[in-house]
């Protein structure tokens, strides 16, 4: 801040020195060509009197020729320099006393604000980085949790599939066994029914044959044989 202040003070001084360095004679007199010539003539008449032919005086002619020399395009007239310098000084003093503190305060405030903003931005960046880190951590945790859940779901699905297949196989085996048992039972029942049917037919035929052959004589012999068996203890 001190360096910047010194530069502000040095700038007007360099400007004044520059103006003084490039000042020309005409400009130093503070007149135009016509004014310069009128002033030369006026001074010559006062010096030599009005009766003297000043225009043919070599000295006056030399002075007039000097009026034709090119004026300094930069160097203002003296009164302008005086007034301008005074105004500049007043303005400079006002600027130093009033403007500079205001500008300095504004710039300090601006700088403070910028610093505050930078600090806030830095804090925000830090916070953002923390949030990002937290977010990335949570994201990683979420991904890990998701991966774990997927693994668990996959494991559970595999287990369910295995259980279903085992149960299905067990049910199929039970169904096959039951079907085999039913078939065997049906076969056994069919054989038994067939055997009973055959036996019934055969016994019916045998009964009819026996009935037709059991006349009174045969009945008597059967009774006698029975009595003999009872007596013999073989009945």
């Amino acid at each position, binding site marked *: 801040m001190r360096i910047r202040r010194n530069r502000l003070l040095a700038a007007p001084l360099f400007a004044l020195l520059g103006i003084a360095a490039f000042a020309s004679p005409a400009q130093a007199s503070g007149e135009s060509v016509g004014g310069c010539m009128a002033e030369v003539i006026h001074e010559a008449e006062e010096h030599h009197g009005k009766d003297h032919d000043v225009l043919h005086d070599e000295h006056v002619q030399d002075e007039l020729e000097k009026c034709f020399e090119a004026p300094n395009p930069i160097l203002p007239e003296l009164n302008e320099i005086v007034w301008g310098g005074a105004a500049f000084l007043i303005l400079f003093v006002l600027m130093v006393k009033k403007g500079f503190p205001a500008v300095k305060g504004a710039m300090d405030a601006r700088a403070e604000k910028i610093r505050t903003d930078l600090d806030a931005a830095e804090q925000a960046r830090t916070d953002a980085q923390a949030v990002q880190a937290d977010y990335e951590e949570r994201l990683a945790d979420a991904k890990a949790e998701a991966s774990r859940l997927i693994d668990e779901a996959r494991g559970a699905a595999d287990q369910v599939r295995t259980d279903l297949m085992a149960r299905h196989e067990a049910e199929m085996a039970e169904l096959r066994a039951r079907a085999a048992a039913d078939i065997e039972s049906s076969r056994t029942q069919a054989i*038994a029914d067939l*055997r*009973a049917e*055959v*036996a*019934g037919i*055969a*016994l019916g035929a*045998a*009964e009819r044959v*026996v*009935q037709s052959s*059991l006349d*009174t004589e*045969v*009945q*008597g012999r*059967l*009774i*006698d*044989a*029975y*009595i*003999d*068996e*009872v*007596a013999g*203890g073989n*009945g």
Partner: protein
Amino acid sequence: MADSRVTGYADALFAVAAAEGDLAVVEDELFRFAQALRSDDQLGSTLADQGVPVSRRQQVVEDLLGGKASATTTALVSMVVGAGRTTDLPAIVDALVERSAASRNKSVATVRTAIDLTAEQRNRLASAINTRTGRDVEIRVVIDPTVLGGVVTEIGDDIIDGSVRRRLNQLRESFR
């Protein structure tokens, strides 16, 4: 009917038949009538039908036994039917027969055959049963065509089955 009531009726019938002096005949006729009731469901249901007046049922008994059985037998059967104990008559007669045989120190052997036994066969069978079981028995023959041939003897709870039916049944069982 309770056993005591069957026994009571049997004792009553036994006493009446004994008092009339023709116990053996009455006993045999009652036995035959009881077998007829066992084998003829229509006869049993008619005599036991409470919707038929007692006099009508007794008239049926008179018509069936009149002239074929003794008056004592007819009167006893009519009395049991009139008392509404027709369905118990077979059990009453069995108890009567047992009671009568017991009075002679004998047991009753119920013999089922397809044809009736001759007197000689009855004596031989009674002797054979005595030889085998040691019990003196009286033979009661029941004609049962389902026996087909041979004899089935029942003495109390003992059964000596020598029928053709049993052999056919054994043959049937052997097929199973």
